[in-house]
């Protein structure tokens, strides 16, 4: 942290909650209900977000939407470029995704490479009717032709900035999204 000169909060806890509620409503509207929907969180922070969207949908639509957890490590395109060997975690999707509407959920959409890996991983598990993408923050700088269907907040960034998402389920402290600026 000492190398980071300044941080700015771009979403607080209430704003995150409202963004998730809005995304849940948009999912139900776009898909004419959620009977066919399966939410799949991309590990790690996509998983608590998917659970929160499912909780809203349960309140609003009265439907328990299945939630799965997707680990994309084995599908990454940068495995040989990294200094370390990333840990492989477990993919857990108890619902057959074939002919369902799969909604991939992640915290930040950046280059699009994680989503590309997630698409490959999902297709290996079955043939969904549709795949859609929900993200809390879209920070731009795509390197692949990928876009999100549901976005909590669009945040213009420069490449040397870092977007930090804190979610109470996996991080200590309160929910918030920060943008960290490098030292000048």
């Amino acid at each position, binding site marked *: 942290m000492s190398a980071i000169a300044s941080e700015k909060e771009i979403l607080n806890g209430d704003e995150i909650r409202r963004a998730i509620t809005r995304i849940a409503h948009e999912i139900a509207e776009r898909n004419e209900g959620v009977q066919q929907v399966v939410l799949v969180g991309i*590990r790690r922070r996509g998983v608590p977000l998917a659970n929160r969207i499912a909780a809203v949908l349960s309140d609003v639509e009265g439907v328990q939407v299945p939630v799965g957890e997707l680990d994309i490590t*084995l599908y990454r395109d940068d*495995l040989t470029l990294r200094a*370390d*060997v*990333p840990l*492989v975690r*477990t993919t857990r999707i108890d619902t057959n995704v074939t002919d369902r509407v799969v909604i991939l959920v992640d915290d930040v959409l950046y280059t699009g490479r*994680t989503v590309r890996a997630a698409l490959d991983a999902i297709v290996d598990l079955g043939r969904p009717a549709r795949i859609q993408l929900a993200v809390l923050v879209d920070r731009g700088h795509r390197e692949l032709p990928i876009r999100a269907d549901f976005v909590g907040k669009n945040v213009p960034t420069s490449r040397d900035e870092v977007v930090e998402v804190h979610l109470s389920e996996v991080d200590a402290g309160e929910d918030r999204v920060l943008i960290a600026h490098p030292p000048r």
Partner: protein
Amino acid sequence: MTLPESMRPTRRHVLDLDDFTRHEIETVLDTAIGMKEILSREIAQVPTLRGVSVVNMFYEESTRTRISFELAAKALSANVVNFTARGSSVEKGESLLDTMRTLQALGADILVLRHSYAGTAHLLAQHFRGAIINAGDGSHAHPTQALLDLFTLRDKLGTLERRHIVIVGDILHSRVARSNLWGLTTMGAHITLCAPPTLLGNEQFWLDTWPDLRIVYSLEAALQDADAVIVLRLQRERQEAGLLPSLREYAQFFALTSARLQAAHAGMLVLHPGPMNEGIEIAPDVAISAQSVIEEQVTNGVAVRMALLYHLALHLRRKGA
């Protein structure tokens, strides 16, 4: 973007478990959990190791270990070639090192070696530019078998810390027992060895190497309070070598029978590295009893080998890049 927590790899070969830290064993076992999920899929294959070449070099017969390595490599989309000494240039007198150099020149990245002489995997590791995995060398080591035993035990018992594991059988000649002793000790388990004195050898050797071991010559006594028992294969040649009066006598005192199973702690797990001599070291009904995890060991073996191939191959690739 947040990156997953990760392990700094320094390991190039897997020759035995004596140089594995607890953290490293745990990393392999945790990785294997993810790999096991892949094996449960309808399409049990991921693209991770495309372009990596794995050669199975088997100088000794093996069904499950060779097939297990082959399936593990294929599940990760690596290229696999099976080399067996029979029908190869080995019969024309080609040496082990020559064969290794030939496979190296042909582009092999990882060699999986099974050999009847102890130390052959270490020898290849001194000369090969890629990674060596020891798939069993003589009476010395069989690290992947031990890792799959650790995986199975941890999965069933929750932890290995302070769990009581009995190893019974031909300890003296067993590479499975030796590698398990290293692995189980590192993971904090308590171990009891049980064997006829002729198949254990010098007690002091074992106690000097693993001071917390217990050695017990009665199987009934050894199994008291055991959480699991690893039954070793009895090679029939041992009787011909004069180490046993008869296989029947061995079975009478050291076979895991249903009577001995019932006298032990109710949830005690039964493991066997295979292939089994049913009716000699283990009774047929014990092998398929509810307490037996022998079939799961075989399935888990593929996942554990996938985890090792993943770590070794990525380490190699990165160095080459």
